[in-house]
């Protein structure tokens, strides 16, 4: 539904703007060229995307995610104090976060949902502090190799599509930190109000 509103809104908006600004004649060719450019982009991305998906599958089968999960354990038990002693939950969270780090989105989601479901048993229907933290960690992307974006840059003719890596890492780290701090702060404010 959201996408229907976005699509319809954007087409109507561009039609209105074209009428007001007198750019109507360029609208039709732009629409058709836009559609064509999507296929070009898809083809331009395809090779890099497939290659990286292959590398990620090797990482998954070699158990790199489990190794990373063990490294992350101590940090994560700081973030989820309510479940520090709950092994199944902490294992699921660690696996979720490390799959996210490696860019294994398809593997990360079921693991995260498993953790969320177990957490919700404690307080049915209400998002506890730890569940809010888990959601914040999953909405703030923390990916070591942003392969899709790199593939888009490659398709646009970039010779060094991965030169944005340091910027992406620093930005991700800042955004996750802000999210965690915001969650901590809001959890205190929330209690005060009740």
């Amino acid at each position, binding site marked *: 539904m959201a996408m229907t509103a*976005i699509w319809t809104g*954007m087409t109507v*908006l*561009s039609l209105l*703007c074209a009428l007001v*600004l007198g750019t109507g004649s*360029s*609208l039709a060719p*732009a*629409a*058709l*060229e*836009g*559609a064509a*450019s*999507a296929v070009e982009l898809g083809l331009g991305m*395809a090779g890099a*995307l*497939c*290659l990286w998906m*292959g590398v990620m*599958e*090797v*990482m*998954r*089968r*070699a*158990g*790199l995610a489990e190794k990373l999960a063990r490294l992350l354990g101590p940090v994560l038990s700081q973030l989820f104090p309510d479940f520090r002693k709950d092994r199944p939950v902490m294992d699921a969270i660690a696996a979720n976060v490390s799959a996210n780090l490696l860019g294994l989105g398809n593997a990360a989601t079921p693991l995260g*949902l498993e953790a*969320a*479901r177990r957490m*919700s048993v404690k307080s049915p229907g*209400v998002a506890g502090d730890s*569940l809010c933290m888990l*959601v914040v960690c*999953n*909405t*703030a992307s923390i990916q070591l*190799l*942003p392969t899709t*974006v790199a593939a*888009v*840059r490659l*398709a*646009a003719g970039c010779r060094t*599509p*991965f030169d*944005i*890596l*340091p*910027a992406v890492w620093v*930005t*991700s780290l*800042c*955004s996750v930190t*802000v*999210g965690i701090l915001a*969650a901590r702060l*809001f959890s205190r404010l929330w209690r005060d109000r009740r």
Partner: protein
Amino acid sequence: MTGPLDLLIPAILAGVSVYGMAKGVDVYGALLQGAAEGLKILLHILPALVTLLTVVAMLRASGAMELLAAALSPVMDRLGIPAETVPLMLVRPISGSAALGVGSDLIAACGPDSVVGRTAAVMLGSTETTFYTIAVYFGAAGIRKTRYAVPAALCADLAGFFFAAVTVRLFFG
């Protein structure tokens, strides 16, 4: 000159393969399986890219995009964020494919190595489809009272947008 980042990709390719072999993984089989899955993902996102790049091209040709950027540029300039990225920031939390469409349009139109193109790429690479993720997680856990999860997650997104502009200026300025 060869910098450390030039060797990062080949090193990952070789390193992951050696590590996988040492662990007894059928490395080549895994590569093929992953690549086949990559094609499936591509097939999955391509229809959305067609519709979204169509409408984004229309918005650009009609002048609506420029209008929006011009209207918001006083605020954005103060924050140091390129005003051209406003449409990307608006759709990013709502739809992953819309963000990919708007972002790749920006990267192609302004150039992948331009400040706008790089900022758009960093924004795409360091944020998530917040509302979708929240809906999936709380739906699966049967949560109705989401408390402060949405504002906290949006704080992280806003920080991501802001720091994308900061880091691009820092690393490429």
